[in-house]
């Protein structure tokens, strides 16, 4: 009973916050409405008994939205998002796309022949999740992780204008890097 009530509260909140993302005209408000929606979704995942996944959703999404704020400062140095701005782009196309995806998913839910449950839910879903990710697919996951990491490092290196020759001189002999604002690493 309590679980049902919780589910409906979280579900309605998630949907309402999701709608508000498109109604707000301030970047900060839209961002945090989206975060609210995602936190509620994480709560729903926890209700399903997948504690680890749910909590990780809370963690990751909060950090992600906090990082968004860095870009807010870059593009909107005016605090409090005083400047009303439309958060909508490509409205018609997006509406068509969203409608189609929603219809397809809903149809899938209603029409799929769901199998009856076999066996019991595991005592520790976190452990099972880890086993299924890291057991037979260990090599895949490791490769994927390294590839993602290399991609991130590569894009950052390509995006910065200054390379190590700018920082340490043409012969890379400088004791201290020549940075606009010195970091604290080398003294």
């Amino acid at each position, binding site marked *: 009973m309590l679980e049902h009530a919780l589910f409906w509260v979280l579900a309605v909140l998630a949907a309402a916050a999701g709608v508000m993302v498109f109604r707000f005209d301030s970047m900060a408000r839209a961002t945090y409405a989206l975060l609210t929606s995602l936190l509620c979704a994480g709560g729903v995942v926890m209700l399903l008994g997948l504690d680890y996944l749910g909590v990780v959703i809370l963690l990751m999404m909060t950090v992600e939205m906090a990082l968004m704020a860095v870009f807010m400062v870059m593009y*909107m140095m*005016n605090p409090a998002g*005083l*400047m009303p701005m439309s958060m909508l*782009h490509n409205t018609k196309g997006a509406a068509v796309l969203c409608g189609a995806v929603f219809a397809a998913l809903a149809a899938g839910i209603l029409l799929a022949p769901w199998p009856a449950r076999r066996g019991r839910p595991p005592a520790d879903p976190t452990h099972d999740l880890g086993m299924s990710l890291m057991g037979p697919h260990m090599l895949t996951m490791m490769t994927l992780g390294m590839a993602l990491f290399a991609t991130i490092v590569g894009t950052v290196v390509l995006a910065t204008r200054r390379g190590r020759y700018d920082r340490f001189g043409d012969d890379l002999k400088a004791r201290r890097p020549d940075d*606009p604002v010195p970091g604290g690493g080398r003294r």
Partner: protein
Amino acid sequence: MDLRDRLRRAALSRPGVMLVALPGATPVRLELEAELRRRGWPRSESPAAADLLVVAGERDPIGEDSWLDGIWEGVPKPAVRLAVRHPGDAAAALDTGHRLLREDAGTRHDLAPAVPPSGGESAAGRNGRPGGGRGERTDDGAGGHHDDGGDQDDRGGHNDHGGHSDGQGDPDGQGGGQESGHGDSGGGDGDGDGGHGGGHSSHETHEMSGPAGLPMAERAEDRDGLTLDRLHLPLGPALPDWPAGLILRLVLQGDVVQRAGTETLPVRRRKDPFWDEPWLRAARGETVPRAEAARRRCAAHLDSLGRFLAVAGWDDPAARARRLRDGALSAEPGDRLREDVVSLARRVARSRALRLLTAGLGPLPAAEARAAGVSGPAHTAGGDAYDRLLVWLDELGRAAGQFGDERPLARDDRTGPRGTLDGAAPPSRGLLDVLPGLLSGAEFAGARIVVASLDPDLDELTAADRREAAGV
């Protein structure tokens, strides 16, 4: 009801104080700081959490200091504003303010109302309720009892931008469209800012269409060649640990200062600049014992040191430096004081963390310093903020060694705490001139540390003509 009353009195047993020092009122500021410390009243960094707004110095007779009213608007009830003009008045004025605060939780007493500019209207309603108390000299003026009713205090100058409310952001999601008909606001924004920001009513007033009629950020290239928003932010004259009377007009992108310009409030002072007094008096032929000059130099550097450490976020030695500063200015016996000063200097000099955190900020080579007319510690250091700090510590130790020296100061000894006092311009003039160059490219916090490491004393700015008048 009675309980609520008692609770309120207990709550206001030690009111929060925001102290704003006007240039030329150094002795008053020192006396107030010492008095507040004796009472253990908490100090507020911003008007938001203050109950008492204490102005050290005299308000401008022609009403040019409307920025003070901006701060006053920002103090929530219960609130009392008072001005202290003479060092001897500090305790009595604070008592008066305290009494008024405890009378009524909804109080807003202005005991230092603005002087109406000629042809303008007064900022505060004056219904002439006398606000003076016992022992107040003439600080009370007409205690305008003004209620501003709402909780909307206008704190402009915060660069919110106005903006077009047509809800059409640009497609790539960049807010802050400056192309909407506002030109470059040229740095002159800030109308009566809530006190941290710049004071002057703006010279160029823009017609702002945005909410609250405030200037907007615009876009410009940053140091990586990206076009990002940039903000005009006036700093001062009422920031904590800030040289009294200095206003910096910063152009910020994110946390990086792109440009900085200095302005100063008009200095109103009847006597020599406080920190340079012994040397100027000796130059006029008076007999000044070296011990007195040493104590004054020591106190001046301890004051600068306290400010530097507070800005660097090291509260413990900052508080110690201020306590010792007051000791050096009082008649405390020299031996004990010398030990304390030397041990404090040693503790600060030994801190590796402080070195790692402040080295490399605001480098000023000796040659550049000399060319700009900087003498004194900043020239001696010939390096970054940390080097300047070390020179202070060095001079502190040396000055502490002369606490017992009763010989008179030589007439041609003109080495004041901030530099030579016989140059064409006062030492702080040079410090102010090098400041903008040192600030561009620094991060906000680094900029604060650079300002604190130079610590210009604006009281000196009118000293040049005074010395001529004295026939030096």
